[in-house]
């Protein structure tokens, strides 16, 4: 009898403990997200010299493009915090699924104080703005000299929402030297070929790369152009298509109207060209099932001769390639100026940083102030160069960066929060040799003469927001099939015919044209 009571007592205690744990864990998970601030503000504040205000505490959601996130006690982070008098709680979200995470955050309404919006024109963000979830920053920007001068007028203009107001600080990026064809100059030289300037010349180069054994191993095993196709877009092959259409993005201005680019006869030509290239093995046989890294590996292992990328990524490719091919020089990573007189021009920004309405006005102003101070040269240099002795050395009055160390210390990751754009940043780097920078600078200047911008950025069409993603996907499915030779080109013709007769298509075109005219009139 006694033994029995004891076991009963134990059962009750156990049950109680279990339910308590459950409750606690449930509360814990919901409580964590809501309270953004951290408790130990006093330790960080002591270092700030000459600042009477206590450090600004804020939570940040930023994109992470490197494998590992800077730790919370990262040296560079602490130095920036000290300089801008803030205590940042940064949630680094991997670039692989940033959109998903952001959409979930927006859906839950639990938005960090400073949030990176990767696509300011997505329906989810537009919705959030129209519901009044974010601060309208338009009236405040002029008070912050760096924000208004170091971020281009175009970037501010293009990131305006449908009501003509700015709901975020655009992250400035250089607008020239967007990803385009990069070709192995050593292979061209070996076969006595010129850098291509038209799609026909590009075809000839690819054909020669495939058949004339440019890597000299005695086998025809080279893949001229490495690429992959995404389920929803053309991936790098988009540059081939756009070289034909001369259009950056999905909309072409034709006779005063915006036309969806898949409907253009040039798109059909591009598909025929690519289908031929696929058949002749000028692009990878697995182009439809490959992913970005697999396609990059083909180039970096010396199996492919052309890749679509920014010139500024040279050292990534070079470091791997030179282990396979010791004769490969840095200047052999050679950017093509233009094809058919086309090369893409960037928008001048990459997403923006927005502040939710849950942040009080005073704090919102302090966040803007923080970003403004951060853009000062002396503060921005912290993430740009790191610390003397560990991340860079001064040689002949020039800072020479140890890129691996700086990468390890997380410096470049902070560019994802605040950045000051150098117009040549997409092609030249401080750590490239002077001859490489000179070459890339010259090519970029040449490219700037013919670069084409995406005119549809920031244009709002309610129908497009709702219908275009599905149409885009269907179009891409059809394109993929035609490139792989699964469907004849006549299938494309009837597909395009149906698309032309889709009432939504006409409606989108009208709305986009109206939005475009409205913007042109306003400027």
């Amino acid at each position, binding site marked *: 009898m006694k033994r029995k009571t004891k076991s009963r007592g134990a059962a009750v205690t156990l049950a109680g403990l279990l339910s308590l744990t459950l409750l606690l864990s449930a509360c814990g998970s919901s409580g964590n997200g809501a309270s953004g601030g951290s408790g130990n503000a006093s330790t960080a504040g002591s270092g700030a010299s000459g600042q009477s205000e206590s450090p600004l505490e804020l939570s940040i959601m930023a994109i992470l493009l490197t494998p590992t996130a800077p730790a919370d006690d990262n040296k560079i982070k602490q130095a920036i915090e000290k300089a801008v008098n803030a205590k940042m709680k940064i949630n680094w979200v991997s670039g692989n699924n940033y959109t*998903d995470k952001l959409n979930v955050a927006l859906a839950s309404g639990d938005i960090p104080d400073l949030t990176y919006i990767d696509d300011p024109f997505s329906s989810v963000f537009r919705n959030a703005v129209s519901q009044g979830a974010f601060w309208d920053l338009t009236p405040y920007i002029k008070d912050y000299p760096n924000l208004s001068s170091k971020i281009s007028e175009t970037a501010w203009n293009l990131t305006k929402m449908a009501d003509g107001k700015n709901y975020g600080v655009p992250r400035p990026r250089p607008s020239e030297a967007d990803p385009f064809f990069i070709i192995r100059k050593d292979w061209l030289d070996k076969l006595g070929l010129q850098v291509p300037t038209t799609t026909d010349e590009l075809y000839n180069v690819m054909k020669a790369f495939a058949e004339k054994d440019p890597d000299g191993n005695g086998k025809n095993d080279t893949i001229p152009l490495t690429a992959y196709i995404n389920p929803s877009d053309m991936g790098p092959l988009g540059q081939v298509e756009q070289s034909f259409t001369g259009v950056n993005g999905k909309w072409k201005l034709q006779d005063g109207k915006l036309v969806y680019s898949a409907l253009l006869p040039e798109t059909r030509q591009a598909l025929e060209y690519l289908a031929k290239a696929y058949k002749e093995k000028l692009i990878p046989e697995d182009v439809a099932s490959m992913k970005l890294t697999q396609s990059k590996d083909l180039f970096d292992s010396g199996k492919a001769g052309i890749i679509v990328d920014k010139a500024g990524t040279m050292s990534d490719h070079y470091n791997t390639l030179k282990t396979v091919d010791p004769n490969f020089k840095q200047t052999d990573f050679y950017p093509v100026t233009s094809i058919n007189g086309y090369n893409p021009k960037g928008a001048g920004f990459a997403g923006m940083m927005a502040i939710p309405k849950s942040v009080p006005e005073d704090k919102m102003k302090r966040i803007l102030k923080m970003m403004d101070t951060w853009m000062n040269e002396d503060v921005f240099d912290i993430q740009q160069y790191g610390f003397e002795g560990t991340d860079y050395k001064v040689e002949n009055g020039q800072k020479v960066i140890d890129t691996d160390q700086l990468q390890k210390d997380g410096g470049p990751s902070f560019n994802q929060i605040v950045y000051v754009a150098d117009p040549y940043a997409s092609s030249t780097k401080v750590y490239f040799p002077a001859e490489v920078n000179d070459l890339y600078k010259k090519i970029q200047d040449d490219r700037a003469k013919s670069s084409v911008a995406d005119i549809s950025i920031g244009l709002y069409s309610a129908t497009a927001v709702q219908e275009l993603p599905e149409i885009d996907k269907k179009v891409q499915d059809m394109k993929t099939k035609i490139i792989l030779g699964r469907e004849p080109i006549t299938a494309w013709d009837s597909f395009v015919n149906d698309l032309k007769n889709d009432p939504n298509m006409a409606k989108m075109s009208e709305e986009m044209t109206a939005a475009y005219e409205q913007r042109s009139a306003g400027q």
Partner: protein
Amino acid sequence: MPAHEPRAGAVPRAWSPGGETSRLRRLALDLKRDRYLYVLALPGLVFFLLFKFVPMWGIVISFQNYSPFAGIGGSPWVGLDNFRRFFENPDFMMLFRNTMGINLLSLVCFFPLPIVLSLLLNEVRSLFYKRAVQTIVYMPHFLSWVIISGLTFIIFAKGDGLVNNMLEAAGAGRVDVLTNPNLFWIMLTIQSIWKECGWGTILFLAAMASIDPQVYEAARIDGASRLRQMRHITLPAIRSVIVVLLILRLGHMMDVGFEQVFLMYNGAVSEVAEVFDTYVYRVGIQQGQFSYSTAAGLFKSVVGLVLVVIANRIAKKMGEEGIY
């Protein structure tokens, strides 16, 4: 605990005159007598309430035009509009066909395999060999789909894949596997078999372990061969496990492992690869149409529930225990 069961079960229905009050009184008596057992069950109940039932409240957004900032309370109600839009969508039939196709193929080809494998393992005499095989066939279960899709690419890629390189060396042409709509369902099924077949044997082997060895002994004395023993002892003994698993499996007829399909998906196979799960993800999370995708998800779950109920009925009719 076993001491309580006969008592609770021994109370015959006809014994009480069946009035509401007496039923309630009996419930109160039961509760009082078994209070410690109920207390023990409490954490489980709390768990299900907190993590399974409370979030289910969210499905009301499928009847709304949900906007995250207005919240559930502030979003306008639209009745069945989302469902109507879903069923009228020309893609609906394609999604339905693909989901059912992939699942039927897996039901026919994949479901019986763990049973066969566990029967084979059960007959293995060398204990060491049996354990070694078990460990090896369990292993793939612990690999993530990301790794498996990467392996599949390395093995079956048309350009530089292992199989195709061998085929070419042997003089045969290269075969396109990854972007071939005709092979896509088969490829998914084979991947599932490779990954989960060994893991699926666990329950069957456990059921077989509980068979009394004396039964086998008696059969052997009566001169039953190994095959006969398998047919008349082992299989009947695990029949109820098979039925339970089959019912549960039917409940998942509308699910296709999301990660697997998503990772193997590409534009060339879209018309056979798009299933409800990928559609809900694409439209809901990526395009932010929360209400519409919830409606699609809800439809999927309701069908699954109906299938479980029907399968359970049938199982009971056939004299099996079922799952509830």
